[in-house]
């Protein structure tokens, strides 16, 4: 508390302790004279001296100073006029806040953010380069393999043809893996475009999309009424597409497939489940299901690169939800995912 002459009237304990000054020493002295004249800053002086005559205030005035008692700190000063009592002289309330730690935290955060941005940029450059530079040689391998086959024509025997087919097949497979990996990385970085959406409509769209795979098969669909919710429609469509697509794939050996899509609410989550009566899986491998390029079946049994469930997990986690699965060999599987219930 300062009087009209900017002399100290009183201060709180923390002030006395921090600046190692006793109430007796401080009282009645000009604030500028305290502690090696550390507050004697022309601009601050000017501002403080205006407070009472002009009814102004000092707002967030920063002082960085090597204080004798506490070392180099950053202080934030605010001051304004206060009325003690009627007919008593008006005074100035000066608040001094040590913001050194806050500033340091802000600076650390900024450095951290810069670092993250750099990493992100590097990742972007990496995936850009992968997408360009790794695909080109694969194209050349496949192209020249085909040209070689044409060139050799009838002089190419069955074994030679088989080898060339394998070279081509591997090149194309690597092309698919690269595309899948880029897609996976894109899903992790793409901006979430969250809107209100109707899950029943979304599932119907996915079923229409998957029609080529359902045509001619005996499938019993059991689909509950699904609620409306919130999320990125494009990404969540991918989730349903993958899970329903998997259910279709792994029930292919079944004489009659049964696929059930249900929903339940638990506390603050909406939980979707996609259950099938297909080949299932061993619960010992459940942890591997959602890994990148992790597969529990050979390509000969069921095709695929093993990116689908990794994408599902990433999308659901980006929406703040969870994924898990249950299954048994020969008895089907059930995949669950939850989304925060924002309703």
């Amino acid at each position, binding site marked *: 508390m300062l009087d009209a002459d900017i002399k100290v009237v009183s201060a709180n304990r923390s002030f006395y302790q921090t600046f190692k000054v006793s109430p007796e020493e401080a009282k009645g002295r000009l604030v500028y004279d305290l502690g090696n004249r550390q507050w004697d800053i022309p601009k601050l002086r000017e501002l403080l001296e205006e407070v009472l005559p002009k009814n102004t205030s000092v707002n967030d005035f920063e002082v960085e100073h090597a204080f004798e008692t506490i070392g180099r700190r950053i202080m934030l000063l605010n001051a304004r006029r206060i009325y003690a009592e009627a007919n008593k002289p008006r005074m100035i309330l000066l608040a001094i806040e040590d913001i050194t730690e806050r500033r340091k935290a802000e600076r650390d955060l900024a450095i951290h953010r810069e670092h993250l941005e750099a990493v992100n940029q590097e990742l972007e450059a990496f995936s850009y380069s992968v997408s*360009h530079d790794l695909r080109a040689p694969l194209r050349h391998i496949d192209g020249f393999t085909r040209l070689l086959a044409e060139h050799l024509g009838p002089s190419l025997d069955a074994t030679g043809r088989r080898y060339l087919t394998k070279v081509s097949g591997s090149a194309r497979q690597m092309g698919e893996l690269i595309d899948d990996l880029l897609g996976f990385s894109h899903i992790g970085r793409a901006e979430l475009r969250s809107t209100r959406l109707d899950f029943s409509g979304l599932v119907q769209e996915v079923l229409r999309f998957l029609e080529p795979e359902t045509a001619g098969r005996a499938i019993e669909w059991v689909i509950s009424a699904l609620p409306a919710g919130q999320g990125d429609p494009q990404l969540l469509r991918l989730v349903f597409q993958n899970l329903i697509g998997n259910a279709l794939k792994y029930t292919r050996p079944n004489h009659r497939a049964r696929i059930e899509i249900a929903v339940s609410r638990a506390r603050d989550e909406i939980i979707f489940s996609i259950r099938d009566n297909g080949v299932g899986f061993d619960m010992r491998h459940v942890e591997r299901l959602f890994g990148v390029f992790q597969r529990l079946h050979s390509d000969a049994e069921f095709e695929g690169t093993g990116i689908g469930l990794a994408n599902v997990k990433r999308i659901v986690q980006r929406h703040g939800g969870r994924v898990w699965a249950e299954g048994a060999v020969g008895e089907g599987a059930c995949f669950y995912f939850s989304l925060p219930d924002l309703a």
Partner: protein
Amino acid sequence: MQDLKTILLVEDSPNDVELTLEALANYRLANDIVVVNDGEAALDYLYRCGPFAAREPVSPVVVLLDLKMPKVDGLTVLRSVKADSGLKCIPIVMLTSSREERDLVESYQLGVNAYVVKPVDFGKFVEAIKKLGYFWAVLNEPPPVSGHYHYHYPSFAE
């Protein structure tokens, strides 16, 4: 006068040049194909300077332009052509290995006429090149040469 329907292929990778020529040969397009190996040579050709100062002043029917090339890349060539009132009518097809969205967006913003991602599968690549060649070199009516207007009357002979 017989139009010289030239296709300009701008491609730095010799492998890609060979495969693209092979794919075009498959379709037996009657066009002359001029191959240049970088963006700088492409601009020289289009502006008829440097080694191409003496070429016929006829624009190619289409430019097949690789996106990623050392020094002057495809986007730079595209920007330059589309900003030039004398050249901007030449159809440009971007051929690229990548599906990167920002390249796609930037190419269209610069006024590309088509954007084709080269498939890894050579069969599909041949198919893509065939369709491209057919569309741009046969089906598409090129822009009239400035100053000369060719009127086409419907022909019942076709």
